[in-house]
């Protein structure tokens, strides 16, 4: 792990340069990306999305996968100028894996066919009566997988196209495990402890592995959930990555300062095009990729426990979804009119702009709190 002095002016100058370069770079190729997304018809379709009616009908035809603007810009700049095996290798790898998963989901959501969903009872019947023994054996072996799929489906996942939620969770778990394995076994003992604000370091040993997996999975999905209104996820991520940049700079970690500054710059360009009415939307490629990158970067600068504060709005959004699902299934009642939280406010009549602006402000304030806590 490379370190330099804390609050280094040289590092700050360099970080600002990276930020400006990535912002300008992203601005420059954004029109090309928009053209490509239109050309390959990677746009939102009304037939597959019941929410695109009434006031939201204007979103039909908006390109998705706009997150590529950030992912590609950050990848190119980091590969060219900030590639270090001991530091940026893992975060970039995590981002790439999550972004690939998101990209596959985005594409399948547009071009994929509807997938059949079998109930466990039907599968059990097939195990008993199918005419081919090898099909019966296959269903028998994969029965736990189908049980897992049904359990996830019961929690409210009703996706016909694209990668289904249980598959996404499984793939994210694999990606998180690879990151955790890499961090634990390849990068040395420095990565095995977490910083507790106002207290000091806590050595976790192998327990860091499940914690990393949990935070990477949860954060990636939380950003994905928050990406429901124009500008919400992009603007909030600017604040989060800016906060990480400041913390990394304050602690004198050059590679992460530059990486976070690069992401912040690219996100500024992205959000410029993403505010209502959006020129393009982030898509899973951006939200899952950047969510994973945010979590890994925070873990890398040893601020794991501050992730819920630095990613405040994402965590709130994800928690509202979890609470709503559990309340709905267990108690038979709603806590919120709709979940995630931004839909609740939309439901009670707040305009999209009002929700997004207020969420940005709250999130930015919490990031400031997170940065302040990180300094202790």
């Amino acid at each position, binding site marked *: 792990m490379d370190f330099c002095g804390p609050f280094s002016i040289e590092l700050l100058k360099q970080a600002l340069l990276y930020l400006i370069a990535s912002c300008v770079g992203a601005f420059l190729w954004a029109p090309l990306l928009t053209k490509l997304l239109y050309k390959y018809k990677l746009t939102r379709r009304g037939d597959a999305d019941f929410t695109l009616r009434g006031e939201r009908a204007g979103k039909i035809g908006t390109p998705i996968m706009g997150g590529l603007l950030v992912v590609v810009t950050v990848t190119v700049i980091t590969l060219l100028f900030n590639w270090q095996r001991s530091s940026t290798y893992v975060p970039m790898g995590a981002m790439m894996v999550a972004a690939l998963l998101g990209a596959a989901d985005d594409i399948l959501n547009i071009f994929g066919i509807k997938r059949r969903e079998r109930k466990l009872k039907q599968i059990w019947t097939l195990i008993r009566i199918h005419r081919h023994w090898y099909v019966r054996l296959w269903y028998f072996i994969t029965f736990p997988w189908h049980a897992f799929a049904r359990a996830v489906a*019961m929690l409210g996942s009703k996706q016909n196209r694209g990668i289904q939620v249980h598959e996404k969770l499984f793939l994210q778990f694999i990606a998180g495990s690879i990151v955790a394995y890499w961090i634990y076994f390849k990068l040395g003992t420095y990565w095995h402890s977490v910083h507790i604000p106002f207290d000091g370091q806590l050595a976790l040993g192998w327990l860091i592995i499940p914690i990393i997996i949990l935070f990477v999975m949860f954060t990636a999905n939380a950003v994905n959930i928050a990406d429901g209104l124009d500008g919400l996820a992009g603007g909030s991520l600017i604040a989060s990555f800016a906060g990480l940049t400041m913390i990394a700079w304050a602690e004198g970690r050059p590679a992460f300062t530059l990486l976070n500054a690069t992401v912040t710059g690219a996100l500024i360009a992205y959000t410029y095009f993403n505010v209502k009415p959006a020129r393009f939307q982030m898509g899973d490629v951006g939200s899952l990729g950047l969510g994973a990158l945010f979590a890994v970067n925070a873990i890398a600068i040893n601020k794991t426990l501050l992730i819920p504060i630095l990613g405040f709005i994402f965590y709130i959004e994800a928690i509202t979804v979890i609470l709503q699902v559990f309340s*709905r299934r267990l108690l038979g009642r709603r806590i919120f*009119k709709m979940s995630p939280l931004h839909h609740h406010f939309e439901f009670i009549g707040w305009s999209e702009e009002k929700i997004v602006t207020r969420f940005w402000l709250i999130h930015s304030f919490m990031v400031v709190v997170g940065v302040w806590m990180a300094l202790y």
Partner: protein
Amino acid sequence: MLSPNAQKILADYMSLPFPGVTGVRCPYFINTRVGRRGQIRSLIGKGTPTEIVEEAKIISIQYQHGLFDHEGHCCIDDERHSPHCHSERSEESLSKHKIVEDSSVVSLYQDDRQNDCIRRFLIDNQLGIDCSGFATHILRAHFLETKKIDIAKKLVKNIPAGLTRKIIMRLRPVESIGVKSGYGNDRNTAKLGDETIGYDFAKIQTGDVVVMLGVDTKNTRNHILVITDYDGHTIKYAHARAWSSEGKFGHGVNTGEIKITAPGKGLLAQEWTEISPALSADLFHQANANETFGEAKNAKILEIRRIKL
């Protein structure tokens, strides 16, 4: 008389509390055929009036049906707004106003059209209440106020079930109470009389229930009436039901009465009266229609029961 809170709930079922709209009677919905599991209780025929109204607003806004605005007010002002308003007028409003000559009736028609639209919307989206859910909400409010006892929690304790089901029943008591398991269960209710042993009508009180088990030919359907008032001569009851003569859009919560004209005989020998809000008098007679009485006659078991508190 029922307690004030129970009366309020009954009144809300008779006229669901939509802001600015009165007279939308809660439709009947039973989850048995649809088979929704682990859902919000207003979607499985067990919701309170407020929950049903709230769910209707959410569905309308979420799926852009255009019936309600974000403040929850009904925004049906012409027939373009909603697909639920295009079809012919319901039996309920037709029976009320046959002639539109008087200008004062025009505003009533406006209200009726709103009611029709909302009722059709509720029925199309399978929002409503079943008989046991209705009885539980009314009696729960009544006994909470008069005896400070939550009967829903009390009734589910005595319903036989395995461990998992017991946990679910503790979390969702109202949804777990059925006519047979909850009210026809000797551990929950005491029998005041049936058709064979007869009834002591003097003992009947508000809050007692008329339990009908096996009202159809297959012996699978059960029904329950809540006794809302008894003055010594007339049993007044309320229930959630679907009469076949009322068609797809006429069913819902209703009230009726049983006049005790032959005190020494059974319930079936008394005079049952229930006016259908959906059928005109002619249609009612043509259909030979007090179907509640018909169900009582068909029931394998017809009893009056009192909840053990």
